[in-house]
């Protein structure tokens, strides 16, 4: 039913000595809302700019709606609504002038939609862009990104600098204006809790590659902390994929990313343990700074 509308495969990019993207691969299905999560410097903006043809990767393949960003950037621009990180418009123009200016670049500009978005977003048409609040600025950017009925919208950290109320409004805008229209959305953020209710899929990006791509519910079901209190730690287990290991006196806490399989094997072997559910922050942390390389993570059982 759904089809792949965006495919990135084995993307590499370095700036001088610094490797920013390292074998980055992912794909996005039609109609999905996908959130790219990562710390500052993880490669979010570089990825997005590569998709838009603004950056030339060192190697790798990108397919956006069937087009190549480097060879057919205009075809992609026509079909995509793009909001750059901290997008600056001309401060001396009014909202309306900005809209007219941008509309000239698009054949399929929908003036009616613009009118209704202006009202819904409560944007004052006559106000100078420089006088707009941060939230109004983002909404103007979103309006400009939506007005040509894009098939896909790519937003680089759109909620950066928005207050909690504006962030919720923004989430609502995504649901009512984009998801309801079956528009595919890819956006980056580092506010995990804001992303959770909205995204069909999250991608955890770290040091230029995707550590995990899954729905948030799948993440919560898969990534759990398993605590062993005494006796033998069950580390002859082949199934368990540990992403973080911590030892306190008499306790060993392992964060695994495949809880169902781990649970089955532990139960079969009659090993007792406690389970802690994790929230998205904890899961993110385990992936990003988790250290699975403690001596416990090897084949033979170890005494705790």
């Amino acid at each position, binding site marked *: 039913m759904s089809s792949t509308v965006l495919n990135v495969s084995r993307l590499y990019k370095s700036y001088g000595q610094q490797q920013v993207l390292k074998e980055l691969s992912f794909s996005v299905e039609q109609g999905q*809302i996908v959130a790219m999560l990562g710390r500052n410097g993880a490669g979010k903006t570089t990825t997005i700019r590569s998709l838009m043809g603004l950056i030339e990767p060192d190697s790798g393949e990108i397919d956006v709606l069937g087009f190549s960003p480097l060879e057919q950037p205009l075809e992609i621009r026509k079909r995509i609504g793009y909001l750059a990180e901290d997008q600056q418009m001309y401060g001396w123009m009014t909202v309306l002038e900005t809209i007219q200016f941008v509309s000239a670049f698009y054949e399929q500009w929908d003036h009616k939609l613009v009118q209704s978005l202006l009202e819904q977003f409560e944007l004052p048409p006559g106000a100078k862009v420089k006088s707009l609040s941060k939230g109004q600025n983002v909404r103007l950017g979103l309006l400009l990104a939506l007005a040509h009925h894009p098939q896909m919208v790519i937003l680089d950290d759109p909620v950066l600098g928005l207050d909690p109320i504006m962030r*919720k409004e923004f*989430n*609502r805008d995504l*649901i*009512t204006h984009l*998801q*309801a229209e079956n528009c595919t959305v890819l956006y980056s953020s580092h506010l*995990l*809790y*804001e992303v*959770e*209710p*909205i*995204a*069909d899929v999250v991608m955890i990006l770290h040091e230029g590659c995707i550590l995990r791509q899954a729905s*948030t*519910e799948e993440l*919560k*079901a898969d990534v759990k902390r398993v605590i062993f209190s005494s006796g033998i730690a069950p580390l002859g287990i082949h199934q368990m994929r540990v992403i973080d290991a911590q030892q306190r006196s008499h306790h060993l806490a392992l964060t695994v990313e495949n809880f169902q399989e781990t649970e089955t094997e532990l139960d079969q072997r009659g090993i007792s343990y406690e389970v*802690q*559910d*994790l*929230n*998205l*922050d*904890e899961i993110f942390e385990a992936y990003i700074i988790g250290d699975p390389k403690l001596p416990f993570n090897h084949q033979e059982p170890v005494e705790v």
Partner: protein
Amino acid sequence: MFLRIEKGSAVPISRQISTQITALCLSEQLHPGDKLPSVRELARELAVNQNTILRVYEKLTSEGILDKRHGAGTYVADSPPIKQLKEQREQFYEEWQQLVRQGLLLGLTKKELKQLLETALASEAAEVSTVS
């Protein structure tokens, strides 16, 4: 129908919503035959992905708590099933057990725990009598 989403919880959002709707049905704040908001409306209100709401409605429909009428929306089922109530009670027993264990760990005696229960019941009874 008032629902609230707790951000940053380890409990998935779909489960937060489905347990709250179930609780509202079982406590008769939602009555059999009441109409629920459409998927789009509830998604907008809670600022939650429409697919999440859809999954919740489908799950609760398959459990017999809600009733999806074609083209007419989603309603509270005529007779919400007993199984659900049983499950919720089982969960409550478990939480109760944990609470008792915690109390014992904090050094409370059995007698003190019993006393706490008596006090809680008494204050609940007082509240009910002032309301009615």
